[in-house]
């Protein structure tokens, strides 16, 4: 089933023609309406849409970075008068000022279209009852999924995040079939559901739309197993619109871009040059018809790769791989690039320990030290220190083989690591703190 079959399955040739037409228009639109882009494009000699002759001419357009967007806080990138803006969202802003997104009526309509597309591609149907356990508010996740699923015709339970007992109660009492949550919260809900001891038949959950943070395949299967659903990933960010930029279909072999609205590229993150097809690098996205706050060649900091092979589901739009990490959550430890997602993959599924973890990076005697805290869940090992040391050794060796790094593994009590209801914050970097 499709939401907009004609667009979702159009030939690559027609799609690229459409993208080129939209790109030309968008370049001119930005040049004429946004002083920041007028300046940038002018310097690059792109003073009208006609300067863009082919899609690959996009490479002459300068990148827009997170810092650029921050410098234009809050409304510097607006392309329309404020009276045409009908909604403002903002990112969590854990570092400095939040990133603001402003939407016209048409933007909201396009946004709910792309979310509806990914929801249907994932398997959502009008008869589904979706509980949205993302925090409602400035964050784009909750309202983005809310209006997209509503457009599909689903019943929405706007639960917001938190109050886990009530979440479980509504699952049962309302016969909820779909869950929208961050992977970490879904994992936590699954744990709680197990503890409650209700039989699987008490729940009708069948589909999870997980997003707003990364999720390894191992973590996903654990979520699926504990909640009894099939989970798909989707992708997006406030800078571009919110969730809906790409999402997995039910075949789960990459996230389909809404390529008629978001034009993706992969670049080498060090040199800034465009990568070869199929090569991994930083994802760069241009919004093709976001009127309130358009963004040209936004550097997402997400590391992924793209395939243009048509998918067996019939969709022709490009698919991106699950981001293997972000250039900014990448830790460099003793010169080795470490992505928390690698550590997560190594840990999930290991016997004796739970799926939650925390990473602490410190400097000891001017050397980086990575401590990995994991929860001991198996009580059978309490017979002897030897058994616990063997477990610790196994975790250490697995991490060593995955990361190529020595780590200090610490066993902690079950449920003692923080559970996250929104985006998980699992890395504590203390390297610029005085040594203990």
């Amino acid at each position: 089933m499709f939401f907009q079959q004609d667009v979702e399955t159009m030939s690559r040739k027609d799609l690229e023609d459409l993208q080129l037409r939209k790109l030309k228009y968008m370049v001119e639109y930005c040049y004429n309406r946004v002083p920041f882009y007028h300046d940038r494009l002018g310097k690059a000699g792109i003073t009208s849409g006609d300067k863009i002759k082919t899609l690959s001419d996009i490479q002459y357009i300068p990148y827009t970075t997170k810092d650029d967007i921050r410098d234009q806080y809050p409304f510097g990138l607006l392309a329309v008068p404020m009276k045409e803006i009908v909604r403002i969202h903002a990112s969590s802003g854990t570092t400095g000022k939040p990133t603001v997104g402003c939407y016209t009526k048409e933007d909201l309509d396009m946004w709910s279209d792309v979310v509806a597309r990914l929801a249907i591609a994932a398997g959502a149907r009008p008869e589904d009852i979706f509980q949205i356990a993302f925090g409602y508010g400035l964050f784009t996740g909750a309202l983005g999924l809310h209006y997209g699923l509503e457009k599909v015709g689903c019943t929405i339970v706007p639960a917001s995040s938190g109050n886990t007992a009530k979440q479980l109660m509504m699952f049962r009492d309302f016969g909820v079939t779909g869950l929208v949550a961050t992977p970490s919260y879904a994992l936590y809900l699954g744990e709680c559901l197990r503890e409650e001891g209700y039989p699987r038949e008490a729940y009708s959950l069948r589909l999870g739309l997980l997003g707003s943070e990364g999720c390894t395949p191992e973590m996903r299967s654990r979520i699926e197993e504990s909640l009894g659903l099939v989970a798909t990933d989707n992708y997006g960010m406030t800078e571009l619109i919110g969730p809906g930029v790409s999402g997995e279909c039910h075949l789960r072999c990459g996230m389909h871009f809404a390529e008629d609205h978001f034009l993706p590229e992969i670049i080498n993150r060090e040199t800034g040059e465009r990568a070869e097809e199929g090569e991994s690098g930083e994802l760069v996205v241009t919004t093709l018809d976001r009127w309130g706050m358009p963004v040209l060649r936004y550097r997402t900091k997400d590391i992924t790769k793209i395939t243009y092979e048509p998918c067996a589901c019939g969709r022709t739009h490009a698919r991106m791989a699950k981001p293997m990490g972000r250039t900014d959550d990448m830790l460099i430890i003793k010169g080795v690039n470490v992505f928390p997602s690698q550590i997560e993959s190594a840990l999930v599924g290991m016997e004796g320990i739970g799926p939650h973890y925390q990473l602490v990076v410190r400097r000891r005697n001017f050397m980086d030290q990575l401590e990995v805290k994991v929860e001991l869940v198996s009580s059978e090992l309490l017979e002897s220190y030897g058994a616990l040391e063997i477990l610790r050794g196994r975790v250490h060796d697995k991490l060593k083989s995955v990361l190529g790094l020595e780590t200090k593994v610490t066993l902690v009590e079950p449920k003692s690591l923080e559970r996250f209801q929104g985006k998980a914050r699992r890395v504590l970097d203390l390297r610029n703190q005085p040594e203990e």
Partner: protein
Amino acid sequence: MVQQISIFVENKLGRVAEITETLAEQKVDIRAISISDTSDFGILRIIVDRPAEAAAFLKEAGYTVSLTDVIAVGIQDTPGEFAKAMRILADAGVAVEYMYAFVSREYGKASVILRVSDPEKASQVLEGSGVEILEPQAIYEM
């Protein structure tokens, strides 16, 4: 067999106080206690009056807990008595993994809690040589 409770303890200030407070709230009486530690964690081992219940309380409070069979022997307070018991086990090829002892005024003897490689065999050989094996109930009610 006497049931011993083992509890995983993170090396954090006040952790043992919290655990024993949990037991106190449930009016659990501790007979014997032993703890050893590495740099970041320890295993607390205790003998209490109601082991199964106490283990359930602790689990509910979120601790990693296990119940283990141990044997308790009564040793006369005379030089060489304990050595005799150890010799019997060694000769029978039973290894001692860990042990701890306590004294009860009423009982008059020292009670030694032993975790051994083969509890059945240990009880057999010790009893056969006249070493007193304490019944679980005797320890719980001591």
